[in-house]
């Protein structure tokens, strides 16, 4: 990637430092001069939003830890202490709790944006797989964080999810005992979850650096899914992407603030304001909304082991998407058939989320089975086949041509040749 300009420090001290550790040059090339495709739309602002959300969670989390007591007798009380007696503790906790939801909202938009515009395709396979790893780490972190307030849902969610590992043949029970640090979810479980909940965000931070590094090696994809060919196709990251990302971020923060300040418990479950009671199972054990589609898949399979395998497979399948998608064209803009299946997949995922919140009975189970089957068929059958049967629309010759056409209001070039260096 050729930059628009290089970093030449005028300040003598800065130049001295730069010759010894070129960190400012790295920042400059990554966040100032970095060439970004000029046709990016607002769906591309979610990468930046996710980085900010990670920092928000880290900062609020680090302060919350100063007041939290990770014991089965003290956890619930300490959360109420934070809510009542710590200065702006209610704000920190509501930001952190709703921040988790906003983090997942942003990551789901980010993932589906990648699916729509084919951002996983050659040469971005490693970038995509790092993203799947990040998603898994986020899920583990969020799950363990949800256990910490030690309410009824915390306790029973921990019990249900850790028990999934007992489905592993032969060693399952031993693994569950090892995870719990005892023979049921109890204080040792709370303490190790607390420790790991503090550790994992820093692991996420590390993998985010790799994710951004991989992104900066291969460059961003774009809504047209065609490669950058010249400087005319790009604009410098600063100010263009910086100001656009900032605008997207602040709009996202308006939604975030809506939750934090006005409906902070909207996404939570009231049972989690009841202290954990190992002797009383809540009538419904439901996970947080962002796990509901996976929970639906888990319960759709009539065998415990099968359900666990299906749930993990539903995430694992994402790793193979770069090779399951056989189409040469990246963006769904130019893939009339894939575009329709993309929307069907999105509706199916939302449907699974709805079913995950419903009791596993009657029609709900049948619907969950159908949607689960469709989810896998999409990735394992439809995606590979589409590449062979679909006739893509003609691709624009270049990003700049596509942008200029659109803004001139002229119709797209008829019969434009397909991007020749697509496989380069």
């Amino acid at each position, binding site marked *: 990637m050729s930059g628009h300009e290089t970093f030449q420090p005028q300040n003598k001290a800065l130049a001295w430092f730069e010759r010894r550790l070129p960190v400012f040059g790295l920042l400059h090339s990554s966040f100032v001069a970095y060439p970004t495709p000029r046709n990016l739309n607002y769906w591309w602002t979610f990468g930046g939003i996710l980085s900010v959300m990670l920092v928000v969670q880290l900062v609020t989390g680090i302060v919350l830890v100063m007041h939290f007591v990770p014991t089965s007798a003290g956890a619930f009380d300490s959360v109420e202490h934070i809510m009542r007696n710590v200065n702006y503790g209610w704000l920190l906790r509501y930001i952190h709790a709703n921040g988790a939801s906003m983090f997942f909202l942003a990551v789901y938009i980010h993932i589906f944006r990648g699916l729509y515009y084919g951002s996983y395709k050659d040469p971005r396979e490693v970038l995509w797989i790092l993203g799947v790893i990040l998603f898994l780490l986020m899920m583990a972190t969020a799950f363990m964080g949800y256990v910490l307030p030690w309410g009824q849902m915390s306790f029973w969610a921990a019990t249900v999810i850790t028990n999934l590992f007992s489905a592993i043949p032969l060693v399952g029970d031993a693994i569950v005992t090892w995870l719990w640090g005892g023979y049921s979810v109890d204080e040792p479980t709370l303490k190790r979850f607390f420790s790991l909940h503090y550790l994992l965000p820093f692991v996420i931070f590390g993998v985010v650096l790799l994710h951004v590094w991989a992104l900066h090696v291969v460059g961003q994809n774009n809504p047209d899914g065609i490669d950058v060919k010249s400087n005319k196709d790009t*604009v410098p990251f600063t100010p263009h992407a910086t100001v656009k990302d900032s605008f997207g971020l602040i709009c996202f923060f308006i939604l975030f603030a809506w939750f934090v300040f006005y409906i902070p418990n909207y996404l939570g479950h009231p049972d989690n304001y009841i202290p954990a009671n190992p002797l009383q199972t809540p009538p419904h054990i439901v996970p947080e909304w962002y796990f509901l589609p996976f929970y639906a898949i888990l319960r759709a399979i009539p065998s415990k082991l099968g359900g666990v395998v299906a749930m993990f497979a539903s995430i694992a399948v994402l790793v193979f998407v770069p090779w399951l998608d056989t189409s040469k064209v990246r963006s769904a803009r130019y893939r009339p058939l894939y575009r329709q299946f993309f929307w069907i997949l999105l509706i199916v995922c939302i449907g699974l989320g709805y079913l995950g919140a419903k009791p596993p009975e009657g029609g709900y189970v049948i619907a969950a089975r159908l949607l689960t089957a469709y989810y896998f068929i999409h990735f394992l059958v439809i995606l590979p086949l589409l590449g062979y049967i679909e006739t893509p629309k003609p691709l624009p010759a270049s990003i700049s041509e596509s*942008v200029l056409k659109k803004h001139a209001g002229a119709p797209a070039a008829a019969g434009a040749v397909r991007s020749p260096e697509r496989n380069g």
Partner: protein
Amino acid sequence: MRKLTVALALLATVVAAPVLAAEVGAKPDRQAWSFSGPFGMFDRAQLQRGLKVYREVCASCHGLKYIAFRNLVQPGGPGFSDAEARAIAAEYQITDGPDDTGEMFERPGRLSDHFPPPAPNEQALRSRFGGALPPDLSVITKARSYESGLAIGLLDFFRQYQEHGADYVYALLNGYEDPPADVEIDGAQAWNRYFPGNRIAMVPPLSDEQVEYTDGSPQTVDQYARDVAAFLAWTAEPHMEARKRIGFQVMIFLIVFAGLLYFTKKKVWADAHA
């Protein structure tokens, strides 16, 4: 054995959830609370009346352990003066100690004390109610809710409705009725429309004219229930007023900032599309 218990509990949740799911009470009606909506604030007089109902009726069985007497003075609450709150605290005997001789002793309450529990421990409390445990009421309005369905639930996002817990408490206190003819309940229980499973170990706690109001408010079960539900909404969320006030400031800031960024973005990008 414990493993078996956990396994059975799990089985109960996964397999028998529909059976348990049937154990829901009637859906409470929504009330017009002074504290709902983006600018909703607590009614000071109502919170003071609700505290009176709590102290004279609820407190004999229900704790309020997260609330200290100093909270009664804090802004956004019932608005008692420092002296009034001290006087309320002094009406309680608090167990303190150990003293220099190692003995526990009783003394009048201070602002820093919390509302004393109705019994020294959970077992003592349970034994009074045949094994049933009257829950602590500090966060009860956040720990209770009811299903409104998908459409209303989504609508609640836009109209910022969060008062389900107060609705439930108000409905429950007004929900006592005679059991259906074919149902027999023992004397320690009562029949309540809104309680999950309808059999509630709390016999009707309120009756008209039970608590004396000095501000001319009607001395009815309906009014008592309304006032104590509002009071418990405050105990569950004592910083609600500050939250909404700061929230409004944050919203104004974010919207103005977003507007400025939008026009900055337009200017920066003007040449990129030419």
